[in-house]
């Protein structure tokens, strides 16, 4: 099922939480929704899940509009809200059974689905406990289990890994990846590494507007531009090496990183690489290269750059 968001606008008082946002998610795609706190991620997700009604714009899920057929959309969506609200006083099995019944899962399938979810989400050891007695990580798993119990076509996860320990984060990511092979997934996060690890496409949103839409690779390319090398050259005086390097046409700037160890940071001109020229210069002058590392622009930097303004 495709999700098409068209000119979505939602106000809270005078403030626009989401401002004319449009995007499209294809069936089977895993979309990562990034942005600083209060950027409008949660609002957009709530609108797709039919919890809030936007003032302007429309969202089509599998061809159904949220204004006209919310019931049809809700049937096909598994939604994990932010902060993962659950009925604390219920036990896991009863809760999952309740959610399955609400979703009209056929009665004979319910026990099977519950068992399946308990296994998939790693809840076997805890299944007879009350939800309120579980640790945050396990509650998060229950949240995922309730979102998945009716085998939805679309999964919307609002910050699915908050409050989990590193092992659990890896497990949940694996789970999302596995699910993402068959289903359309939208997940939000403010942790870049997470989105990079799980998503096919990244959408960065800031102040209610979309700033970037593309894959992690495209993002890097867009922001990085120039080649940056960290290079160590031995066998000569630092200043001589500096002068020789400076004569290379493709090099734009050279910085000393460590004078004693002859470490430089070399930035090439746009769309060119200096690796070969540097190597040839070294050979000609009997220098040898002790270190050569291409420096990637981190996604964190791109994120900061895009969302700080």
């Amino acid at each position: 099922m495709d999700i098409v968001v068209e000119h979505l606008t939602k106000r809270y008082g005078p403030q626009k939480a989401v401002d004319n946002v449009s995007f499209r998610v294809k069936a089977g795609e895993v979309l990562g929704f990034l942005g600083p706190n209060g950027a409008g991620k949660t609002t957009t997700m709530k609108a797709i899940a039919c919890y809030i009604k936007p003032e302007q714009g429309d969202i089509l899920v599998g061809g159904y509009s949220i204004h006209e057929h919310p019931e049809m959309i809700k049937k096909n969506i598994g939604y994990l809200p932010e902060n993962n609200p659950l009925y604390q006083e219920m036990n896991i099995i009863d809760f999952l059974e309740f959610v399955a019944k609400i979703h009209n899962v056929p009665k004979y399938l319910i026990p099977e689905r519950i068992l399946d979810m308990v296994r998939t989400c790693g809840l076997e050891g805890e299944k007879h406990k009350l939800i309120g007695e579980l640790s945050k990580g396990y509650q998060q798993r229950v949240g995922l289990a309730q979102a998945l119990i009716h085998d939805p076509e679309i999964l919307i996860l609002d910050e699915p890994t908050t409050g989990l320990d590193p092992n659990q984060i890896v497990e949940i990511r694996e789970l999302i990846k596995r699910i993402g092979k068959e289903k359309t997934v939208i997940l939000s996060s403010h942790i870049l590494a997470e989105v990079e690890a799980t998503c096919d496409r990244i959408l960065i949103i800031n102040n209610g507007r979309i700033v970037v839409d593309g894959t992690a690779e495209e993002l890097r390319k867009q922001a990085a531009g120039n080649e940056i090398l960290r290079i160590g050259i031995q066998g000569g005086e630092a200043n001589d090496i500096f002068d020789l390097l400076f004569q290379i046409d493709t090099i734009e700037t050279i910085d000393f990183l460590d004078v004693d160890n002859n470490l430089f940071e070399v930035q090439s001109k746009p769309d060119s690489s200096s690796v070969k020229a540097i190597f040839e210069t070294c050979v000609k002058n009997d220098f040898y290269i002790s270190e050569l590392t291409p420096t990637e622009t981190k996604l964190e930097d791109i994120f900061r750059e895009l969302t700080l303004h």
Partner: protein
Amino acid sequence: MKQILHIALRELNTFFDSLTAYVLILIFLGFSGFFTWIYGADIFFVGQANLNTFFTVAYWSLFIFIPVLTMKSIAGELKAGTLELLLTKPVSDWHLILGKFLSTFFLIGIALAPTVIYYFTLWAIGPVDHSAILLGYIGLLLMSMVYISIGILTSCIASNPIIASLSALCIGIFFHIIFDVLASNFVGFLGSLFSYLSLSTHFDSISRGVIDTKDLIYFFSIAFFCLFCSKTILSNRNL
């Protein structure tokens, strides 16, 4: 339709899991039993084989209990965030409101059920007006219906359960006493208006054994009005 029932049953289970239901039933049966059979102008002083004493006690105790039961119905869900969980499932606002309504209504039914023993006891003692007793029970259920709807409405408006329960009591007291008092102080149109608005007028006429469509319309219209307002408030949430 099924959704309403699932929500109602889950809520009913919560009442029992949290012991609210047991405490309520215990207090209700204790009170009504004490005042009906043991204390003051009890059933043996009436001189007739009827359950009017019990109905009066129940009329008052339900009036006080119901706001306590309904106070968390919507406000609690909103506070815990589970409203978002429910309304993003294939559940409409009407399903939720009616489910909440039914759960409390079922609980009142369960609390009233053991008092059927009073009826059989009375039957063994003397000649009973069966239809009057049946209508007395129906009157209690109709009254509960009205107060549950008022409770759900205030729970939709107030985000704090305590405020919800107190304001439900406040609104309820108008129907319970104040309109009645006003009716006896006014004549003419105002007098009959207040008398029509007073819940006790309709309750008395039903528990006397006379069922009139006018009374039924009264109970159902208030209940529907409150539930409809609740639904509208819930639909217009800006969360």
